[in-house]
């Protein structure tokens, strides 16, 4: 496995700056998630690392060696895509063995059998080795695709939304499995997604990309609890962080505040709070969620209720200042004391 270092990377397609001024270090054995909306530059970053694109500016190093000019094959990165891209006419065994039989490797048949078996066991598909790829379920196909990357023992895994075409339950299962696998093999993984749940549950560190610019890099706790900008705060969390009118915080918001934000789990549902006059729109025990509205402002609160509140019922919220995040007109966080507690 290997470490990766990107310094000063820029890549444009015509007038579009896909990635600019990108500096990022990924440690050997680290699971790094690049999170961002579509068009943020996530996939371009992966393709630059793989050597499928050349940067206009900047250098890429692997284990300290400059690989900016090297061919993709010599970089030894394994790609896993959202679409399974298996060979439909081959069995699971042959799909898994394929990379080992390539002219570059030409492993011995005994070695191939041993490694395919090992990977199949890791992914719980050892019983399906003789099936054709087309006879598998979506989850099994994606397991095989991941297996085909694993069997090569590459230096780096590059994964581009590998779970996003699966249904919710499978995604949940594979999320846990993929992370367990990465830990046990000590692989370096750079994982691209727009799903914040995948980011917080899987990553050692999350890098948030918006418009080709890396906004913030940190552990899930750091990025969620201490966002430096409003876009970062809005990228993580479901339901999204609440944006409240500054007028509600007169005398409480620091100078220069243009936006006040508070996470749904930090909103208090109080019998005697400061903000009365809300009307319940939706209350879900399953999602532990209460949505209420006042003067056209919708507030989402994460609350554990024994009984649901009826739609239309009045509600009263508390927005403790120490749990609020304050942003200036440019979307930068204004430092306030006591926020560390929100981490």
């Amino acid at each position, binding site marked *: 496995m290997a470490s990766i270092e990107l310094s000063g990377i820029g890549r444009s397609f015509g007038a579009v700056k896909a990635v600019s001024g990108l500096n990022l270090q990924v440690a050997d054995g680290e699971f790094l998630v690049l999170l961002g909306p579509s068009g943020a530059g996530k996939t371009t970053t992966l393709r630059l690392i793989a050597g499928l694109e050349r940067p206009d500016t900047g250098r890429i190093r692997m284990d300290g060696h400059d690989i900016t000019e090297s061919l993709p094959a010599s970089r030894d990165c394994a790609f896993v895509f959202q679409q399974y891209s298996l060979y439909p006419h081959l069995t699971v065994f042959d799909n898994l063995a394929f990379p080992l039989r390539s002219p570059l490797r030409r492993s011995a048949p005994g070695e191939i059998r041993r490694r395919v078996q090992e990977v199949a066991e890791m992914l719980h598909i050892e019983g399906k080795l003789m099936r054709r790829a087309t006879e598998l379920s979506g989850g099994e196909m994606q397991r095989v695709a991941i297996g085909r990357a694993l069997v090569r023992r590459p230096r780096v895994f590059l994964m581009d939304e590998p779970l996003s075409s699966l249904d919710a339950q499978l995604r949940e299962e594979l999320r846990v499995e993929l992370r367990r696998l990465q830990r046990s093999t000590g692989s370096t993984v750079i994982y691209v997604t727009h799903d914040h749940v995948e980011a917080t549950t899987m990553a050692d560190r999350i890098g948030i990309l918006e418009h080709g610019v890396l906004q913030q890099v940190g552990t899930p706790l750091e990025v969620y609890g201490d966002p430096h900008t409003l876009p970062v705060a809005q990228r993580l969390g479901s339901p999204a962080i609440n944006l409240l009118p500054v007028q509600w915080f007169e005398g409480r918001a620091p100078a220069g505040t243009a936006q006040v934000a508070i996470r749904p789990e930090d909103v208090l549902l109080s019998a005697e709070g400061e903000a009365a006059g809300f009307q319940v729109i*939706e209350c879900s025990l399953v999602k532990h969620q209460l949505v209420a509205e006042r003067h056209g402002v919708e507030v989402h609160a994460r609350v554990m209720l024994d009984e649901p509140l009826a739609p239309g019922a009045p509600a009263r919220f508390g927005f403790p200042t120490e749990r609020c995040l304050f942003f200036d007109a440019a979307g930068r966080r204004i430092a306030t004391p006591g926020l560390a507690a929100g981490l």
Partner: protein
Amino acid sequence: MAEIRIDKLHKRFSDFVAVRDSTLTLADGKFVVLLGPSGCGKTTTLRMLAGLEFPTSGSIALGGQDVTYLRPRERDIAMVFQLFALYPHLGVRGNLEFPLRNEGLPRAEIERRVREVAAILRIEHLLDARVGGLSGGDRQRVALGRAIVREPQAFLMDEPLGTLDTEFRELMCIELRKLHDRLKTTTVFVTHDQNEAMALADHIVVMNQGDILQAGDPGSIYNFPSCMFVARFIGRPAMNFIPLSAAVQPGDEAVSLAGTAVAVPRVEAGAASAVLGVRPEHVRLVAPGEGQSAVVQHVEYFGSHWVTEMTTAAGSLKALVDKSQRPASGDRVAIAFNTARVVLFDAATEQLLASATTRQHQEALRHGQH
């Protein structure tokens, strides 16, 4: 506006029973969700309400009138299949007028209704816009508008949000609920998605394999599931089930979990073998020595909270842990349950066992109805 009454409704397709002797009253003005896995009979029930299928036996009354064998056009019901479909070549106004023109209403009446619907949905300023340029949310509002402009007695919706992505689906849930609060038109909504059901419904009907397993308000279904299937089907992470090693007797106020006594609501119906059920949010970490000891096996961070998987002497279970805490794999912790929210099931029949809390809940519901 109308009450819908279903009496011993039965539907067989050759030797397959799609809906089995269902009896149900859907109160006027309520938002009712038929919830269950695929093949449970929810869509067949809806299609019989719409008149797209006729039952094998039983009857359907809409606002007191028997409509069992009326054709769809003869029932004053609007069926909404897919909220997203709009006519791209028509503008917003054209899309809203379309269902009314089909009915041959006079121009002035069409004009009045379109204005009214646009006002309700806050899309008046978009009436002359083209559909192509609209944001996703506005498109969906127009689609909703097209369904309500006919002013039917009831809406029937078959997984209308099924094809939307998660984020958008949640927005539309809120939009639908707001609309219903304004119009109060009886709505029957079919879905397999428990989140949608719990967010939208006044009343949920849980079905499986043609049977109605439970019908009630979301709180009753979540807190007092009638059987283990309903308990498993609703709530993520799912309710924890812990098999008990000894029988439970009426009057018991505690059960033994691997030798430790755990308080439960007073048992009113016993069982030779039972299963304790507790939802992950009702499992909390307590000071060492105050509860069952457990070892954290696995944690997942969701920002707002952690999901922790733990093993105890009585089995493994999951707990939701507040974000202010930092659970880690290998931690030795102690856990306790929110006793009022612990339920017991008969292990043989998988049915909920009556207890002091289930009885109190039943009584509260009865009083609420008077």
